[in-house]
């Protein structure tokens, strides 16, 4: 699989509470940006298939065909919790790598802000497993991790501060505001230990990438980016797994093992130059540093203190501000991360550019959490 598919175009609309934009508006904007970026002037002839990542209630694939006027070819929706965008990308890459398609469009989009609530919907359709909120699920490792490794809410707050800072440097981000550790610690509580600033907001957004066969990539542009690996792994449900230790998220460990093997990576901390991690909540980013093998289990606290993952650090994480600054339109997020990594590898990330980056990783985790998707990109 490695190096068989290449990304030759990317697009991303502005993420936010896009009250005046429809799903059609956003997906057309992202897709046509990606067309232009790839130099595609006749998508009717040049796009063989479309793979979409979307999770909120929608009008299914017809709305994509009609928005883009792409008919007579496959269009599919992919759903895999918060790893949906990365999984849609995986379908596109595998279709190209298998030689079934020459060029495909991967489109991630979601519009939760038409629902009239600012957070998740409160579920009353069952009696077990309530409260059922992502903040509640993702906070379940907190007490045990804090107890075992001495970390606390202050460490989490620094992650939010870092990502808010990076978000001020990204043109498409929703929140462009510096915050302080005190802001984070004093915000109203959502689900302990997560206060408001520990949580990613919900937002609307769409992002698109054009994937083509590596041997045809040069016909689109010289600075194409190669797909080194893309993995998806499901884990045991952490809420019922009889062997779970509440110190990690196993989906990330499983997906990382697959992705590193595919990409031939032995020492991720040395070999990866920039990473976009799924900071749906601050603790998720913290655990991911360790679960991805960037650092030892339990070492996050010292690395947060020393700035390892800041823009100026050894391994910058969430250079565009992450979910924290972009919000989390579920289907779009994974594709938005690939957009950022492509800009970083091409050297087009402006003030947030990581110098000389040649290998980039993106990561989504979702569900209880049970599903993780990882994509590793590199320069030829």
């Amino acid at each position, binding site marked *: 699989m490695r190096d068989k598919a290449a990304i030759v175009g990317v697009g991303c609309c502005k993420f936010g509470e896009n009250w005046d934009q429809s799903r059609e508006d956003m997906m057309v904007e992202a897709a046509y940006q990606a067309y232009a970026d790839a130099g595609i002037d006749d998508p009717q002839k040049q796009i063989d298939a479309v793979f979409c990542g979307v999770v909120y209630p929608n009008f299914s694939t017809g709305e994509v065909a009609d928005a883009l006027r792409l008919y007579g070819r496959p269009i599919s929706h992919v759903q895999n919790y918060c790893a949906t965008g990365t999984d849609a990308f995986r379908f596109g890459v595998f279709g190209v790598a298998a030689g079934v398609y020459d060029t495909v469009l991967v489109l991630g989009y979601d519009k939760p802000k038409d629902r009239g609530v600012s957070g998740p919907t409160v579920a009353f359709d069952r009696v077990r497993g309530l409260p059922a909120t992502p*903040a509640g699920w993702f906070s379940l490792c907190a007490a045990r991790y804090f107890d075992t490794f001495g970390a606390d809410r202050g460490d989490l707050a620094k992650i939010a501060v870092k990502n808010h800072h990076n978000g001020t440097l990204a043109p498409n981000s929703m929140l462009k505001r510096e915050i302080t550790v005190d802001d984070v610690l004093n915000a109203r509580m959502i689900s302990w230990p997560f206060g408001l600033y520990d949580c990613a907001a919900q937002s609307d957004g769409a992002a698109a990438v054009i994937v083509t066969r590596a041997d045809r990539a040069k016909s689109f542009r010289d600075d194409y980016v190669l797909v080194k690996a893309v993995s998806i792994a499901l884990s045991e449900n952490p809420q019922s797994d009889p062997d779970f230790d509440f110190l990690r998220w196993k989906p990330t460990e499983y997906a990382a093992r697959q992705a590193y093997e595919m990409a031939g990576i032995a020492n991720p901390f040395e070999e990866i130059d920039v990473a976009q991690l799924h900071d749906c909540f601050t603790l998720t980013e913290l655990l991911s540093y360790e679960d991805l093998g960037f650092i030892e289990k339990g070492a996050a606290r010292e690395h947060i203190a020393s700035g390892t993952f800041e823009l100026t650090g050894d391994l910058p994480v969430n250079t565009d501000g992450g979910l924290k600054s972009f919000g989390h339109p579920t289907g779009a997020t994974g594709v938005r991360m690939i957009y950022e990594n492509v800009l970083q590898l091409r050297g087009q990330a402006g003030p947030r550019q990581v110098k000389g980056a040649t290998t980039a990783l993106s990561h989504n985790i979702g569900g209880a959490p049970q599903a993780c998707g990882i994509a590793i990109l590199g320069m030829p």
Partner: protein
Amino acid sequence: MTGIASFGAYVPMTRLPLAMIQGRPAKDGGPEKAVAYYDEDCVTMAVAAAVDCLGAFARERIDAVMFASTTYPLREKQGAVLIATALDLRRDVETADFTGSLRCGSDALKSAVRAVAAGAAENVLVVASDCRMAVPRGAMDATLGDAAAAFLVSRDGNLAKLRASSAFANEMQDVWRADGDEFVHSWEDRFVVQEGYGPAMQAAVGGLLEKSGLGIGDFARAALYAHDARSHADLARRLEIEAARLQDPLFGRVGNTGASYALLLFCAALEGARPGERVLVASYGDGAEAFAFEIGDGISGASQRRGVAGHLDRRRPLRSYDSYLRSRGLQQTEWDAGTGPGLSATIRLRERDADIGLVGAACEVCDTVHFPQPHVCYRCHARDRWRRHRLSDKTGELLAYTFDFFFPAPEPPVVMTIAEVDGCRVHIQLADVAPDQVRLELPVRFTFRKIHDAGGKPNYFWKAVPL
């Protein structure tokens, strides 16, 4: 010979300081009443009292459940069968609801004794539970409390035996609640006492003494339903019951608990009783009924029950009258679960063992316990090799927790946890706990609670509570 083999009680730990009803600040040690919290109702209290009563008694030996309440939330649908399912009883268990009068609690107990004595059943579980609503800040707000009492009546029960009973019928409109009424109504209070409570109770007790040939002095303890503290004291005086022999009616601590009241006071009396003593029990409602019980040797046996005394020690005063109103559903909230379509009846049927019974399954190959029962084992991957494994009567400990401020609750946060019980992980809320008591490895047991009112009816599951 037929007798009471065990008893148990449940008094909710939530207390409303009576001062708050008048808008005055609560004083430490001041009068209060026990109130069902937002996740409790007459069914959850009944299950808790039944669990307190049954202890380690083999539940498969129970032949019938008799449930007495005037506040079971559904007009058509039985409470007893729900309670039997929550207790994981046999499928051929007989179930019956007793309702319509505050006397239904003692009616159920009497019926159980008669059924066992007649040889129709060997072991009958009787549960009385009520959760009556007074108009906020109305006359009855200070007197109505919530509680449940349970008895196991067995062929060989030797805690207490019923020696005689005497009823007195008295049709009048003193206290009532019509279909659709949320609150209990009462005619003028002096009328209720002078024409109802006082004469009816005297007539029933008088009849009992006549039938049994006993004198009032032959009773070591008198557990009398009380309309209020003053009329209760007046009745005791007229019946010439010494103060030392009068069971405290628990005003200022629990309140008048309706259908469960006489039985709750009987439980309290049993807690201090000795073999050979007699206990007078009198219940009220559309007349009255008096009972003479003789205490047996079984009363001296060791027991794990919490009983009335144990529950009185567990208190959690409400912070404000507003939080009382919210916990009783008497204030509008933005999250109104009652307006939704509710649970799917088909899913509810398929998940009944797990949702109502907290019943999981152990793998017959590797013994790993799962909840709910899956098809394929987590550990050994064997398919469909399960034996039933009840979790509700086991204890566990917390492995993870969070305080959820998002889920609607009268007093956020909701404590969401992963508890481990018999090696099995269960996602479950933690109830009856202050946030600063929550810690990893906290030992817990399980209690049946209401989760929400989706579809306009109560929907139940279990919660963990500290041991």
